[in-house]
């Protein structure tokens, strides 16, 4: 072995020749980050659509319905592509397992995408209006869950950046999904009906920013993974795009172009955020110090006054 490897520094964090302890997420890119993004966008859009229908904003309702359907179907496609074979998605529905966020998610995603598709079909064909509205209401109710279950999906892993960020990720994903859903509306709906979307976008951006800041600074050594490397670049871009989206939606007045640009910026920000979070997870799994140091710190906290820590001579 090389001298660096042979003489492992005793302080900080030791490792087995610098090899990772936990495995990197087995999920493919771009499939799974896109799945996260599309699902969230669809969820927020569906909720908006349901309320828009109720409050008499037909274009917002129509667009939201179509985005919810398209987004959730694309999300399913992304998942199937990751699984490799279509029938493997059906295996997701063999059982319902509350301990598995992916099982729970599948049971959210499957009815959501079915209802969203029905609602969209009704909207497009103009048939079975009441049933379409009912389906739309269903997707509207499931929408918020679509926005946040994916955060648990990531956080319920041993991937340090995700698990350590388990408190922040749901807020981040909720905010990001709201901004993205709003972004789709801003992009596609005339400004006469986008006021709610504008407001939702701002709320989402604020929530995303707050959670993002905590991820970048409050997770100890693991926060490095959100600030540096590919994840850092993507998340910085996401931050900037969110700011652009928010600014344009506030300052653009009634300009259709400014509104569309704001929407596009929100959507791009959503993509960057999801890819960034994913990248942070990969980076945190690759370097064993992100596994070891938080655990050692936890042990040090727990051993104050407690019996000898595990893995120590006793």
């Amino acid at each position, binding site marked *: 072995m090389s001298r660096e490897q*042979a003489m492992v520094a005793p302080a900080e964090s030791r490792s087995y020749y610098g090899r990772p302890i936990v495995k990197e997420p087995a999920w493919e890119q771009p499939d799974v980050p896109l799945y996260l993004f599309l699902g969230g966008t669809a969820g927020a859009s569906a909720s908006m659509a349901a309320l828009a229908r109720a409050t008499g904003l037909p274009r917002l309702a129509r667009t939201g319905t179509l985005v919810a359907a398209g987004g959730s179907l694309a999300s399913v496609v992304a998942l199937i592509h990751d699984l490799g074979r279509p029938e493997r998605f059906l295996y997701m529905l063999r059982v319902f397992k509350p301990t598995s966020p992916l099982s729970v998610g599948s049971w959210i995603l499957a009815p959501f995408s079915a209802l969203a598709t029905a609602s969209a079909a009704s909207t497009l064909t103009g048939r079975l209006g009441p049933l379409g509205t009912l389906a739309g209401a269903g997707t509207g109710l499931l929408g918020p869950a679509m926005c946040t279950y994916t955060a648990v999906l990531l956080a319920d892993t041993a991937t340090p950046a995700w698990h350590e960020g388990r408190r922040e990720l749901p807020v981040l994903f909720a905010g990001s999904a709201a901004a993205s859903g709003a972004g789709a509306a801003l992009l596609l709906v005339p400004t006469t009906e986008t006021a709610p979307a504008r407001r939702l976008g701002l709320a989402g951006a604020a929530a995303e920013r707050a959670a993002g800041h905590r991820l970048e600074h409050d997770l100890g050594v693991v926060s490095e993974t959100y600030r540096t490397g590919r994840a850092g670049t993507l998340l910085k871009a996401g931050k900037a795009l969110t700011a652009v989206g928010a600014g344009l939606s506030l300052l653009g007045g009634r300009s259709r172009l400014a509104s569309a640009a704001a929407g596009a910026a929100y959507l791009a920000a959503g993509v960057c955020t999801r890819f960034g979070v994913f990248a942070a997870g990969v980076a945190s799994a690759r370097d064993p110090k992100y596994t070891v140091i938080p655990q050692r710190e936890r042990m040090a906290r727990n051993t104050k006054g407690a019996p000898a820590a595990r893995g120590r001579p006793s």
Partner: protein
Amino acid sequence: MAECHPVGFQWVMEAKNRGAKIIHVDPRFTRTSALAHEHVALRAGSDIAFLGGLINYVLGNGKEFRDYVVAYTNAGAILREDYADAEDLDGLFSGFDPQTGRYDVTTWAYEGADPAPAAGERELWVHPDEEHGGEHHGRSARAESYGSGGATVHAKPIIDETLEHPRCVFQVLKRHYARYTPEAVADICGVSTRQFLDVAEAITANSGRRRTTAWVYSVGWTHHTVGVQYIRAASILQLLLGNIGRPGGGILALRGHASIQGSTDIPTLFNILPGYIPMPHAHQHLDLDMHVGLDAGATGFWGNMRSYTVSLLKAWWGEHATEDNDFRFDHLPRLTGDHGTYQTVYNQLSGKCKGYFLVGENPAVGSANGKLQRLGMANLDWLVVRDLQLIESATFWRDGPEIDTGELATEEIGTEVFFLPAASHVEKDGSFTNTQRLLQWHHKAIEPPGDSRSDLWFYYHLGRIIKQRLRDSTDPRDRPVRELTWSYPAHGPTDEPDAESVLAEINGSGPDGPLSAYTELTDDGSTSCGCWIYCGVYAGGQNHAADRVPGSEQDWVAARWAWAWPANRRILYNRASADPDGRPWSERKRYVWWDAEKAKWVSPDVPDFEATKPPDYVPPENAQAEDALAGNDPFIMQTDGKAWLFAPAGLTDGPLPTHYEPHESPVDNPLYAQQASPARQLFGGEHNRYNPVGSEVYPYAFTTYRLTEHHTAGGMSRALPYLSELQPEFFCEVSPALAEETGLEHGGWATIISARTAIEARVLVTERMKPLRVRGRTIHQVGLPYHWGPNGLSTGDSANDLLSVVLDPNVHIQEAKAATCDIRPGRRPRGGALPELVREYQRRAGIEGSET
């Protein structure tokens, strides 16, 4: 041991668990070192200095087990007045002839012993034969041919039991090793005096009446120009400490290959017959009487050699072997000189040897100086390779390194190569005899695939077909084959001969059926036995090699697990575990003792002594064979019943182990003017040039070895994915200091150069390789596992290609464990540039064109 014998190492771990201290002496820090209490890193090739230091420590501090030494060894024997020791002659013993490079051993005999037969015998042996051999015939194979007993001494020595006589062995020994001080050991071996003394104290404290120490060595000890003397040095130490023939003692040889012990018991060696009966010589052993008369010890159990030999001849030629025709003694082949493997390669090169069988052997990778091996094989008429895989020795004509360098061209190689796929051990019935002399039967688990067949199938049917062809021959030279007993029941779709029927033949039979002990063998032709030391393995018509009573269901000696030769005896010479009066040396180490009431020896093992010969038995005048040994002579295969601290006969290179440097050494010999063993066997030729001693061109020492993950030359491992992936390619091991000095990078490539060739290897920089301080200098050692060649899944250059052919003169084994080289970063040149690089080094070292 953990590296190469991991399964056997479980018992070391068990001993450790019970409180045994494990000391590992090895140039490298291996998996064995990792589990030992102490690792002693010494310079490769310096073991006799280390062992000699221990002997000196024992003698200098009066730590020997005096009662044992006086009673059971030749410590008190008086040597001749004209014997001169290495101490007197600066590294030579008396009798050395610088012209021939050989010793006349006359002066090594005991005082008063008639040396004439031995000396005369040697003169006869020195008989250059222009027809078949090389210059080395003279001493060929003599030492090995003493078989499982020692050499013959034709008289009992004069003994001084006080061990005070200045010419007694004990005093000679003391003088011989007096300069092997801890400081000398440190200077030669690179072992600190503190560590040396730790070891010395540990083994002496753990030896004596109540305790015993075991030494375990692997083939690394035998791969030296003084390999035999390495083992002798350990023997002397163990005898002085009373650790032979006692439980927990001994010198345990771990051999290199499954059933390698078996392949010397039933030999694949040229100079012995089954059971270590010497192969007759063309010019000395004209008939059975001469053969037995010259070689049988008149006293001791070798005194019965005639019975063993006649029974062997009966097993081979059956009804055709009768008293009238000397039991067909004339049918046996005869030696005309050295027919050892390296001499054979030179005979191939010179065109004398035209055909070659390789059976489970891959010399293109596994033997020293692979190029010489490949060039030899390229000069044959035909070559038969029986192996599990297409090994390098079967494909050298196509992908050997010499094809790339242009030294050989496929279309110019005339050798016709026959490759015959072999069955593995799980695909056939048979037995393994491993290091502990245990015959363990294995049953066929599955049929061999395709055309693969067992060796037994191959030789049986080959013999059958040859016999058929010669059926009507009247040529007298065909009679040995025509009269050979060759009937084994064959069965199954492939006509596989019954392996158990062969075991039965080896066991032997008499008028009453299967024999149960070699003491039943006779010289009148009424018994037959294929290998006298295996006699009893089929006692009662039962295959005892297949005995498998678990250890938990029998006593601790576990005599019903498999069968140990001879006579299912688990510890040899175990009479030595009792004192001369037949009482155990201590209760703790009780093993064999004389039961006066029953008037017999008793033991959980089979006593290695005549069952009813009392301890106070004194042999009458002119007694023969075992009757000539006293009741307190435990070493019953020796003519004098004693273990030899000093070897008055039997060795070609000195009666006492002496530190000589390896032939290729980075340093001088501080003890004697004589640098290397004077009797070592040198060869020459443009492909076997030697690196000069202390050469700055080849400044580093290297040693070769094996890894757990691969098997010897790779035929059984490099084609298997599960093993290959564990060690996927050839690498060398170097210390961080050497890496720094030469610019080697961990994971990068190195080129390693000797006067023979240059090879490349990936680099493992590791703290486990430690530079040593020797002769006031830092000596770096390069570690080279030797498993690789171009074939298979896990590939690489062959480390053995770097080695020269230079041999131990007793047994013709190559010095593979200590040589010199240069190492530098980067890959080796390709094509013709490779030999050019080697020649450039030779030029710089001043050896280009040398023919030694």
